[in-house]
């Protein structure tokens, strides 16, 4: 699925990475625990999270995660947007709960990492 479609399905706002919206994703991981996310090795994965801080973006950078969706109406700080932009990470904000976002994406065929 392209990020454009993912953004539409989760009713998300694009905070940065507008030019990269055609990136394909296959997998999604949903977690608020960054040390958990850091154990995943899949390429083409989107991170769904309720954790909105600098470490969310750092974790994506280290794990080569190209798209992060902040859920439950959490807002990215200007510093987060700047860091995400610097590393070509697409940053989205969705009003959905974790459960709803997972359900919608699972139905649309996005896969679990295990």
């Amino acid at each position, binding site marked *: 699925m392209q990020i454009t479609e993912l953004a539409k399905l989760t009713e998300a706002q694009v905070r940065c990475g507008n030019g990269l919206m055609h990136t394909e994703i296959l997998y999604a991981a949903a977690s*608020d*625990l*960054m*040390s*958990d996310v*850091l*154990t995943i*090795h899949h390429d083409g994965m989107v991170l769904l999270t309720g*954790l909105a*801080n*600098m*470490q*969310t973006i*750092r*974790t994506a*950078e*280290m*794990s*080569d995660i190209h798209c992060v969706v902040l859920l439950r109406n959490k807002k990215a700080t200007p*510093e987060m947007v700047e860091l995400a932009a610097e590393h070509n990470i697409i940053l989205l904000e969705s009003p959905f709960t974790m459960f709803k976002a997972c359900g919608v994406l699972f139905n649309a065929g996005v896969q679990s990492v295990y």
Partner: protein
Amino acid sequence: MQLQYDIEGGNFTKAGFASSEIKKVLKQLNVDAATIKRIVVSSYEAEVNIVAHAYKGAVTVVIDHEKIVMQYQDEGPGIPDIEQAMVAGYSTASPEVREMGFGAGMGLPNIHKNADDLLIESEVNKGTLVTITIYLKQEGGQ
């Protein structure tokens, strides 16, 4: 090549800066993406451990043709039982650290999984030295 970066205990806004710089250098050296990921994930976990558990520290990185050696040295409480600290799920992280998205007790086991060699030396009430070695595979080579 040798690099060195300071790491501030308690400062979660800056955590990851050193690992980010290391990643930039590895990309310039054309190390393959999978190896870079193993290196920077290990590095980031060790860096966050200093931020989360120690007072201050630094990382020294030495890169040669065949390997990267990263030494994370800190002044802090030290680790009384290293074997126990290596158990997945064991964590003494504070509620503040957990709020930042860490404290699952996954860091050290994850470094162990990603590194070719991991050595932890620690003295209680003094500090900890974590040495991570990973062998490099150049892009286009092998």
